[in-house]
C-alpha cells in the first residue's frame, strides 16, 4: 500500500459483518473508523476526511441512498456500497445517486480489495492502470488505442461501429467499476434513451461477438444482472 496510510469510514449496522470487513480492511493496510448508524457515519466522514466510505444500504436510521445523496452534496469521496442480493433496485439507485461501486454480501477479501482498488484508482487522476497517458489500454488480447481510435486483437484490426467504440472506451475509462445501464445510455446515446436498456443490450451483444473469444461466456465484458456492465481486465 501507499506510504501514508489511507483511511476508510465503514458504516454498517450488523456488528459481526462490520467487524469482519474492518479486519479485512486493516489487513489491507487501511486505517478504519467504524460506525453503526448513518448519522454517526456522516459525522465521522466530516471529521476524519477519509479516502473512502464503505456504506451498507440497509441501515436502521436512514435510507442508504439518502446518505449517498447527502455525501455527494459536499464531497467527491469514493463510496463503496454493501448490499444483499435481493436489493437490485436499491443498488441501481445507489449507483445512480453517486456511489462508485457495490459488493454483494457475502464477499471474499480478494473481491473487497479488488473493488476498493478500482474505486480508488478512478479517483486518483494519476496515470494509473485505467488512464494511461499514451491512450493505450490492453486487456486480454485486445488493445484499445484511443489516440488513433483503433481496437486490435494481435495484429488484426477489429471494426467497431461508433457506438460500440464509445461503449468500449467508456468501460475502459472505468475499468473494474460497474456502470449502470442508465449511466452508459446517457453517456453514449443521450438522456432521452435512458429508459431503453434494450438498446444497450443489443449493442453489447454485438460488441461481445467482436471482442470476446466466446460471446456466451465472456471474460472481460461482464454483465451485472439487473444493474449494468463491468469491464474486467484479467
Amino acid at each position, binding site marked *: 500500500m501507499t506510504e501514508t496510510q489511507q483511511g476508510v469510514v465503514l458504516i454498517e449496522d450488523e456488528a459481526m*459483518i462490520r467487524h469482519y470487513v474492518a*479486519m479485512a480492511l486493516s489487513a489491507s493496510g487501511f486505517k478504519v473508523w467504524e460506525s453503526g448508524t448513518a448519522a454517526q457515519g456522516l459525522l465521522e466522514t466530516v471529521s476524519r476526511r477519509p479516502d473512502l466510505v464503505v456504506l451498507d444500504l440497509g441501515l436502521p436510521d436512514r435510507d442508504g441512498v439518502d446518505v449517498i445523496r447527502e455525501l455527494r452534496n459536499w464531497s467527491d469521496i469514493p463510496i463503496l456500497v454493501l448490499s444483499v442480493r435481493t436489493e437490485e433496485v436499491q443498488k441501481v439507485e445507489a449507483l445512480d445517486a453517486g456511489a462508485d461501486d457495490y459488493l454483494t454480501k*457475502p464477499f471474499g477479501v480478494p473481491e473487497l480489495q479488488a473493488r476498493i482498488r478500482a474505486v480508488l484508482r478512478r479517483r486518483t487522476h494519476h496515470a494509473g492502470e485505467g488512464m494511461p497517458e499514451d491512450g493505450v489500454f490492453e486487456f486480454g488480447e485486445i488493445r484499445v488505442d484511443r489516440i488513433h481510435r483503433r481496437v486490435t486483437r494481435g495484429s488484426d484490426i477489429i471494426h467497431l461501429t461508433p457506438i460500440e467504440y464509445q461503449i468500449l472506451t467508456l468501460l475502459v475509462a472505468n475499468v473494474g467499476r460497474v456502470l449502470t445501464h442508465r449511466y452508459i445510455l446517457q453517456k453514449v446515446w443521450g438522456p432521452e434513451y435512458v429508459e431503453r436498456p*434494450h438498446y444497450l443490450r443489443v449493442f453489447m451483444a454485438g460488441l461481445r461477438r467482436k471482442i470476446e473469444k466466446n460471446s456466451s*461466456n465472456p471474460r472481460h465484458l461482464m454483465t451485472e*444482472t439487473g444493474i449494468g456492465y463491468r469491464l474486467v481486465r484479467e
Partner: protein
Amino acid sequence: MRRSLNEMMLVVSGIVLVTFMVLPLRGHVLLPNILMVYLFLVFLVAFKMSRWAALLASFLSTLVCYYYFVPIHSSFAINDIQYLLVILMMLLIVLVTSHLASGLRMQIVLSESRERHIRCLYDLASQLAGISKPEAIVEPCQRFIQVNFNIYSILLLPSEDGKLFMAGQAEGQIDYSLAQQIFDEDPKELSFDKCRRSGQNLYAPLLGSTKNQGILVFFPGQKAWTVPKELDPLLRTGMTLMGLALERLGYAERERKAMLAVESERLRAALLASLSHDIRTPVAVLAGVAESIALSLPQEFKPVHGMLEGMQRQIGRMLSDVDKLLDMARLHRDIVSLNKEWQVLEEMIGSAIEASKGVLQGYFVEVSVGREIPLLEMDAMMMERVFRNLLENVARHTPEGTHVDIGARMVEQQVVIWVADNGPGFPFGQEEAIFSEFVHKKNVIGTSGFGLGLSIVRSVIVAHGGMIHAENQPSGGAKFVFTLPVGNPPVVGLD
C-alpha cells in the same frame, strides 16, 4: 255478496229518505232543482259504492222522479212530451255520471295499492341491502310475505356443499327432496315457472343470475290461497330482490375468502423472506470469518486449510439454498409484478454461467444460441436463476467431466431453450416423476435442494408464459426443454 246486498239496501233507503224530504217541496220549486238533488245522490253512491249500487241508484232515482215529480204527480202518466225528454236525459246523465265516478274510484284504489306495493318493495330492498349474512335475510323475507299475502313462509338456503337447509328459526314440514330438485335445476333454465306444489305448500326458487340462490316455501295452511300460474308480480319482484341479495352475499363471501388466501400467502412469503434474511446475515459472517482465517493461516497447516475449504463449500451451499428460499418467497409475492425488460438471451445465459462457475468447475459448458433469437421480455434476475438452478442441478446429479449443452432455437413463433447433459440421465421412467415432483411440491418449506430449485425454475417459466418438461436423450443424458413466447420485440436501429 253480503256487502253488495247491504249496499242495495242502503241505496233504496237513501232514495226513500230523500224522496220523503223533497216531497213537500213538490210544486214549490222547479223540477230541475229536484232532479239535481237525485243527481247528487247518484254521484255520491257511485263514488262510494260498487258499480251495481250506482246502476240501481240511477234507475231507481229516475223512476222516483218520473213517478212523483213529473206532472201529472204520483202517476206514470204524462201530459207533455217534453217531460219524457227530461226524464230520458236525466237517466242518461245519471248513468254517465255514475260510470265516471266509479271509474275514478277504481283508479284511486288501484294507485293506492300500487303505492303500498312499492313501499313494501322499497322497505324490503333497503332491509336486504343492509344485511351481511345469508341468515339475516330470513326475517325481512318472511315479514314481506306475511304483510302482503298473509302467508307463512320458510326460506331454504344452500350450505357449502350445495345441500339445502332451513335458514333461521322456522317450523314446518319440508319436502327436502322436492326442494333440492327445484334448486338443482339446470342453470340455463332458471325461471319462476319451476315452482311446484307439495301438499298445500308451494316451493318456489329464488333466482340468481347464474344459479338458484335458495328455495322459498309458502304455507297457505287452511287458507284457500290459490297461487296463480304466474306468481303475483309483487311477489315476483320481491323474490327477485331476495335472489339478488343472496347472490351479492355469495360474491362478498367469495371475495373475502380470496382476500384471506392472498393475505396468508403474503404472510407466508414475508415470513420466508425475513427468515432467509436472518439466516443469511450470520452465514455471510461465517463465510467471511472462514476466509479471513484461511488467508491469515500459514500454508504449513495443510489439514486446517482442507477443513476450512470444506467449511467454505458447505457455507456456500447453505447460502445458495437460502437464496432459493428467498427467490421462492419473492416469486410468490411478486408473481404479477415481474420486472420484465427486453433481454438478450445469450447475455443472460452468459451471466448465469458466470454466477455458477463455482459449482461448474470440472464441467464443460457449451452454448449455442441461434442468431435468429429476438429480444425476449423477461425478468433478468429470475430468468438468470432458472439457468443457474438448471446448471446446479446438472452439477449435483452428474460426475465431473460431464458436458453441458445449452441452446436455443426458434420453433414456430416460440423460442425453445434446452439445457442438456451427457450424464447418466434420469432413472428409467422417472422423467415424468421429476416433472410431477415440481408440480406437486407446492409446500415450499417442506421441499429442499433438488425439488425447490426445479420448482422455482418451473414457476418462473410459467410466470413468463412458457412451459417446461424433462426428458432423457436418445444418446443418453438428461435434457430440460422449455419454451418462451416471442412477444412483440422493439426495433433497435443498428447505427
